[in-house]
């Protein structure tokens, strides 16, 4: 049996497996996260006719000019238009709690005092507010789409939040345009990207420069007075971003929050006083709607589905019917999608086709009963149309259009049965009641009772249909999913079998080379078993929603246990030394064991501190942790900790460089570069961070860019130069001897290996220290110490591995490093909810908005720890004592490369592919779970990003390894030829 695979075949196989995995993953993602389930096309006049009567659609109606279309709508809707102008004021990220309070309690006192005018409007019954529950993901663009179209978009909208594109589905603004209304927009330029060319005037501001809290809002408000004096617009959209930015910088309780709320209050006051207050006549009435697209968590982030994030505001100011009670005006709940049908009916345009919302009842209180029922009917028709397209079986057969022949008693039945029957039955109930009310209305008998039961029946149908539509997991293309999963399984199998072959080969080689060593290594050790157990535990735990939410506990638990097992093993070797005689070798052995034990203990201690730093997760975030404690202690303490950690980091990395004996000058230069860039980072921290306003100025950006450049150049420089500079030590003396001598070849091979290892060490060091310094710059101030702890951990494990000798299996060590990286990922405060992604850091050193750059920075920040762990593999290659493997072989560079790089690359790939595949299957099984969109899907995005991170790391490791090997092979050839 040919147990050894050649290097090139190994590479080809693994690249094939990776490509297969990528294909499978993308197919699965495309299939599972439906991109757009919506109907194309726009609702026209047909939406005012019953969907059940196959009325002939008049094609000409669509082609009507705007004015005629408007009057046609007016005529056939038979609801008078309540308002002529709309001011839609979007306050990005304002939780409804701030204005309306929570759980029947009014908002806290200082918040109420921050918005005196709005509160007085609410108290006087001039305004009515709603907690409008937003659907996750709570980021701006999908929420804006939901507000204007009433549809709940696909989950992948998040991914496109940073790459907005024109919104082509049926929506309110399109409807308004079709009746010839003029629209003006000031604020977030997302609107301009969604609706290019729609606005007659606009001033867009970018939402991507998070540190700016003043300019973004000033740019909106400066147009306000001018716009309010004009009368050439029907829709005015104002989108204020400042409050969201305040949240991102300082969280809910930021000291900037109250002034910002007051500023918003001033805007509301100005609009109200200038447009709504003066108009007592019935013409040209204006409605002011204050809405927010989403809320924010305590830390000011958003994206997830907690109450704090989904609790957005919908405040109607200027309705005709006054609400007398403050409690009535504030304790209402609705859904964010309800805004679209409500506005459509208020303004007499067709409800957008994909709307799943239900009109908000109280808003229509000024209409007559007849008109209200008509509004409900229109909404029901629209939902029924949508249902009909989603459920082809829904025909609601025996329904006659003209004349409802059902008598009253048979119409009202309790509804049950299949989805189709349920919806049909509910709709009929409502329609029958409506009709009987219509006929009764003529005779004017017991009309109040009938009215309320009809409304109840309509709401029954509307709510059921709306819920079903919004919860419906849209049709998933089964073949796509199946193919994706199969591809992933296949690639996982390929990777694992490659790993298995490699393990077997390494094992055989070891047996061959080290037959004189003890035989105990043939046994299956506890640590190896445990690594496998860890994988199984992880796979099982991913099936439980709470374990996904609290994943950091699992990683911490498992990693600590793994290192305790390793500690136990180290102690075992110590014992073996003590029992036997006092040979020098044994003493050496013992010294090594002490070394190992102490490094593991250092590692465990830093692991524990890291664990305490962030509470993490979802359910227990309120428990105290070190970061909270430090934040309470004040920013001075944080700054000093940041300084200390910076200094520690620099000295540690200098210390790590010191054991290198050869080429002192080169090492000195490297050390100096590291020191200099470390100083630059420290200066940046001292000077610019912590001052919210200073962070955006030119100097800070320039400084950060200089740091990026220095770090990048020094890393690539080290990578390119060091293989050429590292000495191939013995070869000078050897080359004069006889070349063909096998012993010399051996020695030469070894010396090449030593040079290789030295250069790999230097490159690995450069990667790690540059990565750490970069993180120190990018991460939140509170995270600077955890970065140092991570660095300490990895250095300690490096020490541990370097003193290990050939006793341990390589794959165990690589897997342990990978686990360390993942545990550190959660130690930095990340979780499986989109809310913990640090957005503010992604704009350091970025002068203008660039989606790509900020995206890359965000990725680097979020996956700091896995990236660091993967980069440390380069250093690991250099430390692992593999020289014994070369002795018997005449090593060509391909073999050398395979020996060095195969394990550090294949083990993370294999582990990650197991996790990815398992989680994919779990997600498929959980597709009907209650938490599938709020818990499992964000986690899947994280898993995908981790996969990308592993690809990146492995590519870097493999590229570095092959480059170094290539250079050394070249040098060997050159020396031979001399």
């Amino acid at each position: 049996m040919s147990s050894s695979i050649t290097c090139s075949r190994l590479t080809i196989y693994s690249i094939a497996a990776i490509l297969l995995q990528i294909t499978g993953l993308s197919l699965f993602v495309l299939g599972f996260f439906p991109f757009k389930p919506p109907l194309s096309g726009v609702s026209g006049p047909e939406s005012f006719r019953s969907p059940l009567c196959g009325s002939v659609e008049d094609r000409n109606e669509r082609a009507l000019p705007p004015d005629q279309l408007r009057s046609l709508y007016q005529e056939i809707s038979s609801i008078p238009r309540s308002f002529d102008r709309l001011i839609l004021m979007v306050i990005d990220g304002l939780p409804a709690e701030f204005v309306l309070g929570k759980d029947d309690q009014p908002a806290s006192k200082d918040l109420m005092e921050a918005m005196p005018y709005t509160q007085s409007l609410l108290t006087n019954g001039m305004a009515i507010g709603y907690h409008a529950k937003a659907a996750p993901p709570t980021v701006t663009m999908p929420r804006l789409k939901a507000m204007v179209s009433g549809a709940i978009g696909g989950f992948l909208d998040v991914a496109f939040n940073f790459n907005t594109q024109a919104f082509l589905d049926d929506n309110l603004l399109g409807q308004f345009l079709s009746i010839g209304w003029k629209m003006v927009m000031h604020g977030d330029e997302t609107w301009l990207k969604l609706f290019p060319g729609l606005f007659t005037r606009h001033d867009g501001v970018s939402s991507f420069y998070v540190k700016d809290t003043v300019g973004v809002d000033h740019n909106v408000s400066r147009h306000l007075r001018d716009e309010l004096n004009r009368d050439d617009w029907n829709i005015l959209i104002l989108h204020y971003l400042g409050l969201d930015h305040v949240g991102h910088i300082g969280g809910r309780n930021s000291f900037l929050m109250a002034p910002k709320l007051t500023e918003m209050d001033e805007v509301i006051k100005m609009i109200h006083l200038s447009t709504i207050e003066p108009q007592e006549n019935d013409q040209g009435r204006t409605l002011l709607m204050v809405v927010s697209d989403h809320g924010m968590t305590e830390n000011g982030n958003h994206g997830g589905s907690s109450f704090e994030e989904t609790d957005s505001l919908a405040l109607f100011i200027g309705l005709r019917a006054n609400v007398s009670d403050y409690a009535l005006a504030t304790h209402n709940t609705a859904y964010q999608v309800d805004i679209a049908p409500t506005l459509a009916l208020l303004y007499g345009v067709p409800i957008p086709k994909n709307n799943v919302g239900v009109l908000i009842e109280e808003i229509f209180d000024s209409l007559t009963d007849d008109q209200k029922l008509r509004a409900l009917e229109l909404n029901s028709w629209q939902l029924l149309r949508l249902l009909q397209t989603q459920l082809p079986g829904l025909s609601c057969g025996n329904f006659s259009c003209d004349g409802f022949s059902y008598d009253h008693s048979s119409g009202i039945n309790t509804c049950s049965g299949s989805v189709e029957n349920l919806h049909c039955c509910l709709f009929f109930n409502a329609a029958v009641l409506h009709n009987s009310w219509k006929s009764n209305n003529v005779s004017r008998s017991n009309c109040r009772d009938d009215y309320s039961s009809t409304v109840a029946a309509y709401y029954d149908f509307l709510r059921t249909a709306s819920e079903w539509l919004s919860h419906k997991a849209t049709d998933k293309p089964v073949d796509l999913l199946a193919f994706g999963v199969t591809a992933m399984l296949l690639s996982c199998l390929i990777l694992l079998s490659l790993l298995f072959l490699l393990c077997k080969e390494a094992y055989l080689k070891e047996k061959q080379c080290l037959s004189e060593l003890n035989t105990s290594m043939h046994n299956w050790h506890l640590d190896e078993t445990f690594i496998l157990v860890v994988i199984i535990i992880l796979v099982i735990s991913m099936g439980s929603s709470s374990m996904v939410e609290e994943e950091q506990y699992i990683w911490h638990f498992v990693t600590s246990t793994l290192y305790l097992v390793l500690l136990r093993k180290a102690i075992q070797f110590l014992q073996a030394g003590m029992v036997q005689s006092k040979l020098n070798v044994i003493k050496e052995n013992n010294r090594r064991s002490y070394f190992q034990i102490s490094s593991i203990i250092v590692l465990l201690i830093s692991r524990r501190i890291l664990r305490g730093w962030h509470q993490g997760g979802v359910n227990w975030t309120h428990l105290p942790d070190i970061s909270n404690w430090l934040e309470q202690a004040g920013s001075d303490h944080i700054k000093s900790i940041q300084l200390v950690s910076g200094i520690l980091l620099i000295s540690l990395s200098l210390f790590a460089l010191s054991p290198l004996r050869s080429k002192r000058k080169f090492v000195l230069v490297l050390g100096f570069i590291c020191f200099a860039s470390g100083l630059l980072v420290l200066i940046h921290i001292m000077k610019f961070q912590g001052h919210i306003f200073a962070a955006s100025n030119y100097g800070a950006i320039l400084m950060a860019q200089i740091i990026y450049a220095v770090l990048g150049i020094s890393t690539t420089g080290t990578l390119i130069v060091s293989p050429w500079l590292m000495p191939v030590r013995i070869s000078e003396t050897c080359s004069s001897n006889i070349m063909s001598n096998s012993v010399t070849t051996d020695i030469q091979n070894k010396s090449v290996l030593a040079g290789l290892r030295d250069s790999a060490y230097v490159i690995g060091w450069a990667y790690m220290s540059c990565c750490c310094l970069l993180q120190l710059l990018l991460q939140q101030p509170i995270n600077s110490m955890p970065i140092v702890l991570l660095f300490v951990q990895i250095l300690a494990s490096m020490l541990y591995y370097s003193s290990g000798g050939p006793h341990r299996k390589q794959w165990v060590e690589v897997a342990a490093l990978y686990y360390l990286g993942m545990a550190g990922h959660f130690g930095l405060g990340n979780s499986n909810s989109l809310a913990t992604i640090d957005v503010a850091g992604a704009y350091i050193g970025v002068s203008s908005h660039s989606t790509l750059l900020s995206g890359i920075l965000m990725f680097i920040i979020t996956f700091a720890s896995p990236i660091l762990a993967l980069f440390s593999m380069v250093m690991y290659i250099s430390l692992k004592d593999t020289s014994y493997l070369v002795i018997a072989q005449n090593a060509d560079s391909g073999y050398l490369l395979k020996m060095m790089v195969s394990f550090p690359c294949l083990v993370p790939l294999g582990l990650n592919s197991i996790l990815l595949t398992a989680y994919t299957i779990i997600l498929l099984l959980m597709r009907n779970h209650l938490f599938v969109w709020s818990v499992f899907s964000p986690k899947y995005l994280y898993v995908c990003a981790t996969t990308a991170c592993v690809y990146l790391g492995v590519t870097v490791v493999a590229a570095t390894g092959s480059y170094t090997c290539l250079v050394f092979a070249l040098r060997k050839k050159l020396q031979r030829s001399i």
Partner: protein
Amino acid sequence: MSVFTFVPAACVFGSLWTDWQRIFAHTKPVRAIDFMICLPAHGAVIGAWFGAWPMPLDWERPWQEWPICVSYGAITGYLVAMVASISFVFVRGGRQHVKPD
């Protein structure tokens, strides 16, 4: 926890490093008393390890508080291992009795 593992071992072995290592790092008990200490101690540790698993689940039961599950796990593990060790001792004791005969 330390009552189950550390104290009995300390009472018997005192400060003899070799014995400590033999029991806890190699798990190679020899005498009956070794069994009585070694197995329950490991049982307690492993039981506590498993006892920690239900803690992060969101069942909202009162016993999911921090030390409760772990203590129960440790006690259960200890008891199981105690029974096991007694049976081991008896089996071995029987064998040793048989051999001289």
